C-alpha cells in the first residue's frame, strides 16, 4: 500500500509538466549561461589588441615602437596596435576614446592617458619593463665594454628569454579554477529548488491549506505515513533533477566535480533533503498568504545563493572571513563548499564539517515542520 501511494504521488507530481520542465531545465539553462560567461575568462583569450598612438620627434618608427609592435598575445594576435600620429591628432583620438592612450617619445617614452583602466595599466607595465630592460642593458654594456648597438640588437632576445620563476604549489594537478565555484552554486541552487517540492507536499496534506488536504485528513491513513510516501516521491524527482544537472555539468560542459562519486551523490542527497525540509518548514511555520510565503521562499533561495557566491564569488569569501556563522546557517553555502572540498581537497575534514551542518539544518527544519504538522486539528479552515 505504501508503494502504491508513493507511485501515485510520483505520477501526480510528474503530470505537472510545467514544474517538471523547469525543475530539470532551469539549472541547465543557468549552467549554459554561466558556461558562456566563464568559458572565455579561464582561457585568458579575453585581452583584445589595445590601440595606442605614438608621437615621435621625427614622426618615424624607432626601436621602442618596433618592440611594442612585436609583443603578441597569441601567435597571430598582437597586444598593441600602434599608430604614428601628430600630437594634436593623438590628443583628439584619446578624447574620443579611439585609443587607450598615446606615447610621446622624445628621449624616453611618456604615456598620456585619460584615466587608469585595465588597458592603460597594461600599456604602462609594458613601458615600465621596457625602461627597466633598457637600463639593464645600459648597465651591462657600461661595465663590460660591449657596444651599445650590439646590445640593442640583443634586446628583443633578452626580452624573449624571460623566464617564469614561480611554480604554483597548489594541490598538485588540480587547476585552481574559481569559476568552478559558480557552477557549484548552481548545484546548490538546484538543491534549494527542493523548497518548492517540500512546500507543495505540505500544502497538499494540510486540511487548512487545500481541499485535497482536507479530504486526506479524514481518510483512515496515518498522516505521517502518507506524508513520508509523498515526501519520498518528491525527493525522488528532485534528486533526479539534481543528478540530471550533475550529468550535464560533468559530461557536456566538462565541469570538474572530483573523483569521489559516492560522496558527490551523498552531498546531493543531503542537499535535496535540506531543500525539501526547508520548504516544508516555511510552508507550515509562516502563516500568511501564498504570495508572501512564495516571496519568502524566493528570497531564501536567491539570498542563500547570493551569500554562497552565486553572483559574485567574493561574497563567499567575505562571509567566510567576516561572518562564518552565516555560512554555516546557509544551506546553499554548505553545499557549494562541500562540492568545492570534493573537488579541491583530498581530505574529508572540511567536507564532513559541511555535511554535518547540512544534516543539522535538515533535522531542525524537519523538526519544526513535523511539530507544526503533527497537529491534526485546525483552528480554522
Amino acid at each position, binding site marked *: 500500500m505504501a508503494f502504491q501511494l508513493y507511485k501515485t504521488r510520483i505520477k*501526480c507530481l510528474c*503530470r505537472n509538466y510545467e514544474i517538471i520542465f523547469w525543475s530539470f531545465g532551469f539549472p541547465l539553462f543557468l549552467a549554459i549561461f554561466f558556461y558562456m560567461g566563464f568559458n572565455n575568462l579561464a582561457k585568458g583569450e579575453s585581452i583584445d589588441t589595445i590601440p595606442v598612438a605614438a608621437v615621435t620627434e621625427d614622426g618615424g618608427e624607432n626601436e621602442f615602437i618596433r618592440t611594442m609592435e612585436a609583443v603578441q598575445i597569441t601567435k597571430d594576435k598582437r597586444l598593441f596596435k600602434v599608430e604614428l600620429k601628430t600630437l594634436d591628432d593623438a590628443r583628439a583620438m584619446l578624447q574620443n576614446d579611439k585609443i587607450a592612450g598615446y606615447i610621446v617619445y622624445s628621449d624616453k617614452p611618456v604615456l598620456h592617458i585619460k584615466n587608469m583602466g585595465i588597458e592603460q595599466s597594461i600599456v604602462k607595465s609594458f613601458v615600465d619593463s621596457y625602461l627597466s630592460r633598457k637600463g639593464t642593458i645600459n648597465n651591462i654594456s657600461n661595465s663590460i665594454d660591449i657596444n651599445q648597438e650590439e646590445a640593442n640588437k640583443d634586446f628583443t632576445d633578452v626580452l624573449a628569454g624571460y623566464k617564469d620563476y614561480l611554480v604554483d604549489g597548489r594541490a598538485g594537478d588540480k587547476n585552481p579554477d574559481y569559476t568552478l565555484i559558480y557552477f557549484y552554486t548552481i548545484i546548490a541552487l538546484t538543491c534549494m529548488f527542493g523548497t518548492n517540492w517540500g512546500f507543495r507536499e505540505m500544502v497538499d496534506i494540510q486540511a487548512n491549506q487545500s*481541499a485535497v488536504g482536507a479530504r*486526506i*485528513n479524514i*481518510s*483512515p491513513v496515518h498522516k505521517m505515513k502518507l506524508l513520508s510516501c509523498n515526501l519520498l516521491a518528491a525527493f525522488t524527482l528532485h534528486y533526479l533533477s539534481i543528478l540530471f544537472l550533475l550529468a550535464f555539468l560533468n559530461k557536456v560542459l566538462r565541469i570538474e566535480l572530483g573523483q569521489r562519486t559516492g560522496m558527490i551523490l551523498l552531498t546531493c542527497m543531503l542537499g535535496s533533503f535540506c531543500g525539501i525540509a526547508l520548504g516544508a518548514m516555511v510552508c507550515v511555520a509562516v502563516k500568511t498568504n501564498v504570495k508572501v510565503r512564495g516571496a519568502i521562499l524566493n528570497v531564501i533561495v536567491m539570498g542563500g545563493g547570493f551569500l554562497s557566491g552565486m553572483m559574485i564569488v567574493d561574497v563567499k569569501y567575505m562571509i567566510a572571513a567576516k561572518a562564518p556563522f552565516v555560512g554555516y546557517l546557509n544551506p546553499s553555502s554548505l553545499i557549494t563548499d562541500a562540492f568545492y572540498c570534493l573537488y579541491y581537497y583530498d581530505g574529508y575534514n572540511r567536507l564532513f564539517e559541511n555535511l554535518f551542518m547540512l544534516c543539522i539544518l535538515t533535522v531542525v527544519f524537519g523538526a519544526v515542520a513535523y511539530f507544526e504538522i503533527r497537529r491534526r*486539528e485546525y483552528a480554522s479552515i
Partner: protein
Amino acid sequence: MIVEVKNLVKRYDKLLALDHLNLAVKKGEIFGLLGPNGSGKTTAINCILSLLKYDKGSIEIFGKPMRPDAYDIKKNIGIIMQNVAVFEELTVYENISYFCSLYVKDKKEVKQLTEEAIVFVSLQDFTKFLPKKLSGGLLRRLNIACGIAHKPGLIILDEPTIAVDPQSRNKILERIKKLNENGATVIYTSHYMEEVEQLCSRISIIDKGKVIATGTKDELKNMISLGEKITVEAYNLKEEQLDEMMRISNIAQVDYSDNLLEIKSKKGKNNLIHILDYLQSHDINFGKIFTEMPTLNDVFLEITGKELRD
C-alpha cells in the same frame, strides 16, 4: 445512534460559530442539516470530522468518540466537500482510485470499487480526463465518486450541489437516495430547502450555530401555527373587504396585489371553504385558486423571524 453531537461549541475569535449544537443521526436515515449561509453547517461538519478544533462538547461516531487519529472510525466515513477536492494532475480514474486506496488496502478491491464508483456516477466516458477538462456538473460527480468509492457506512455531503445545474442536481440527489437504499447513513447539508424536503427523512434546522428545530418535515411543519397558503385570482377587491376577510376564523394574513389575493391560514379545517364562501357572498369574481402546504422556509421564518435565503 450513528452520530451523536452534544453541546458543541466553536468560536472563531469573537464569532460564536457553533453555540451548544446538538445532533443525533440514526442508522439508515438521510439526515438533513438545513440553514442559511453562515449558519455553521460546514463548521459543524468539520468539527464532526475532527478537522477543526472545537472549544466544548462531545462527538461520537458509531458509538465511539471521534478523534483525529480514530482511524477505525474514519475508515467507514465518506465525505463529499463543498469544494471539489481532487488532484489537478490525476485523471478521473486515478483520482478515484487514489482516494479509494487510502481506505482499502487490497489492490484488486480498489480496482473493483473504483470501477463501481465510476459507473455509479456515470463517468465511464471520462475516465482518462483530467479534472480541468470536466464541466462543473461532471466535476461534482467526480468529487462524489472520490468520497464514496470505498462504500462507507456513513456519508457526509456538505452542500454537494452548489453551482450545479438542475439536471445534474437531480441526478446527484437520486444517487444519494440510492446510496441510502444500499444501507448507508447520510448526513446532508444544504441551504436549498427544496432539496432537503425532497431527500431527507429527518431534518435539523440550524441558525447562528444552534439547532432551532429537529424532526421529519411533517413534524417540523406541524410545529408551527401556520396552515396552508391560499392564493386566489380575484378582481377589484376593496380595502374594507380585505379587513373583513381578516376577521374570518383561522386567517393569519391577507395580502392583495396585482389581482392576486394571498391568504395565509392558521392550522384548522375548511379554511378554503370559508374564503370561497366569503368571495361568493360578496359577488367577487375570481379565477384560479391554488393552495400550498407550508414550506420549511415558513418554518424557518416563523421560528427566527427571517427568511431562509436572503
